């Protein structure tokens, strides 16, 4: 691993794409406004200029065809990396994702495969218009055949994205919009990979554990630090890959601490928090000392942005939930 530099998460994404384009001629980027414009968040900034319009391709405005054509590109031997402008605009492509991306290998008995990456910003907190702040990871995780990765640090953004591009299977790559520019960190230079399927231990602890991902990592950490002031050592685990989930690490920390909190910014009911609670049951039932708790957004559509800060989990609300979990008799 070469020594890296301090970068934003967004710049780390760009760097990963740059490395992939440079290393592998099969890599091709496609999406809306990713060319000259460099993407609405600038994730592909400079890549059109560097690799040309044949490898960094602006498409018509049609998400189902972006994913559908990317399937075809993959079948033809390429390694397409599609950008969806915001996660809410993955919805028109869900049919292609659920009916095809996830099933081509299965249906063709291994003959035709779709080593495709679909990247997109997701999550709230940046005062965006309606449908620009969706957290729809649960739909993807419930779809067999897909992998789902979510970085929360610049190094992971690069490392997970390069692993995703290299993976023989389709990977949905969710980039926490809120952390794009607000988080900086060391990013190893060159080819740097972080394996899919392994959680990251952000902080050790024996009194409780918070499972989280994406933009929920910083406020979870904040809550854990506050709990420390009360004398509790709370672990924070960034799941990092949501599919496949790192059941081993989840089980281990659930057993080790007996007190579990899951935090996500998708609505509570049917969110991934439920799955993680269920895994804790299966892996650590006899060790649990308090009911695993879920901190999530309420079961409403994502509200207009003037109230989104109230809507989203914050350090303080996570801390309140943590207190309850830790103090349960």
């Amino acid at each position: 691993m070469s020594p890296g530099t301090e970068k934003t998460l967004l710049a780390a994404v760009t760097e990963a794409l740059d490395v992939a384009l440079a290393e592998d001629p099969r890599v091709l980027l496609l999406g809306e406004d990713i060319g000259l414009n460099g993407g609405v968040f600038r994730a592909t900034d400079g890549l059109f200029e560097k690799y040309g319009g044949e490898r960094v391709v602006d498409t018509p405005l049609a998400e189902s065809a972006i994913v559908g054509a990317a399937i075809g590109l993959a079948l033809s031997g390429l390694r397409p990396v599609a950008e969806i402008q915001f996660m809410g605009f993955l919805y028109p492509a869900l049919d292609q994702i659920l009916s095809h991306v996830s099933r081509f290998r299965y249906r063709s008995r291994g003959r035709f495969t779709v080593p495709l990456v679909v990247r997109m910003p997701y999550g709230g907190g940046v005062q965006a218009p309606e449908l620009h702040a969706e957290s729809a990871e649960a739909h993807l995780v419930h779809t067999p055949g897909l992998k789902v990765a979510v970085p929360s640090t610049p190094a992971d953004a690069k490392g997970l994205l390069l692993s995703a591009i290299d993976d023989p299977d389709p990977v949905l790559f969710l980039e926490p919009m809120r952390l794009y520019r607000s988080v900086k960190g060391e990013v190893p230079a060159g080819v740097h990979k972080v394996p899919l399927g392994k959680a990251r231990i952000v902080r050790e602890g024996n009194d409780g554990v918070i499972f989280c991902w994406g933009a929920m990592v910083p406020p979870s950490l904040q809550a854990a630090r506050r709990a420390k002031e009360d004398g509790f050592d709370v672990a924070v685990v960034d799941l990092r890959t949501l599919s496949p989930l790192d059941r081993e690490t989840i089980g281990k920390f659930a057993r080790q601490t007996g007190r579990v909190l899951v935090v996500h910014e998708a609505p509570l009911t049917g969110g991934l928090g439920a799955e993680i609670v269920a895994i804790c049951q299966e892996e650590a039932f006899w060790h649990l000392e308090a009911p695993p708790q879920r901190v999530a957004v309420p079961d409403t559509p994502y509200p207009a942005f003037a109230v989104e800060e109230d809507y989203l989990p914050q350090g303080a609300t996570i801390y309140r939930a943590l207190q309850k979990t830790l103090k349960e008799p």
Partner: protein
Amino acid sequence: MEMERILDLEGRPLRPPRLSLEESRVLLKAMLLIRTFDSRALSLQRQGRIGTYAPFTGLEGIQAAAVRSLTAADWLVPTYRDTGAAILFGLPLLEALAYWKGFPDSYRAPADRQILPPSVPIATQIPHAAGIGWGLKHQKKEGIVLTFFGDGATSEGDFHEGLNFAGVFKTPVVFLCQNNGWAISVPFHRQTAAESIAIRAQGYGIHGRLIDGNDPLMVAEAVQEAAERARSGEGPTLIEARTYRQGPHTTSDDPRRYRQEDPLETTLGDPVERLRLYLQKEGAWSAEEEEETLQEAREKVAQAVAELEALPRPSPESIFEHVYGAEPPFFQQQRDRFLATLKEAQE
């Protein structure tokens, strides 16, 4: 398909317009009102007093000319780009501004105005418009539907499905494509290899027209004719109005990254300018009138801005309003717990 136009770039009529001079004057005034709103909204955004804003600069002609054919029985199905049309059809300025400030309670039309909230996901409102038209026809209710969308929207599946439905059910809908040449950074010729969008009408067995969207008199006639067709049971019309996006896509956009000079700018001109030139030549518009109109517009907008800024910050309770018609018990419980925790946490 040839682009139809009435006024040339200097505001000279190539044929007698259907609109009277008085009607044209009313139209220009409407355009000046929404242009004033638009530029004020842009500056509010620059000052951080509202959020991301999608300007409609250059589309005033289309939007004002289109809604003048609507009556109280009709429906307007807009996108984020059509604040001008919504305002002229009756959306209070305050409601429009509150929307762009991210307030949950916003974009609420008066009870006698059927204006849907703007559709943010591209093209998804097109089947809604088809369905409303179908429903009106089915119930033998008076009324037609006017929906707007951009050139980019025409690449989405929902554009196709919606227009095909409208053709099959012969619904009273005017589908108005504001082809401003760009979908954010993607120019029209990269959006499709077709020469025009209007040409697609025959693929749905419906009426289609390609018009100069910066010619307000042309837009007014085309929409009026389409509305008449719709009202008399002749079914939907697809109108492609060619125009030019004068500003950025939204205030988050930096067009210098992808757009240098655009020939459209010189071939289409500015709609306000063209109509003004026409009226001036006809002796039906003066500098004083212009100033008066603008003055009035500025006052109206200033008043709305003042009201906006007097609004209290929306409450967290508003998050839970209007999710269900009849709230299930779990939901009430969830709200109560959530609000209690939030309050504790904020203490």
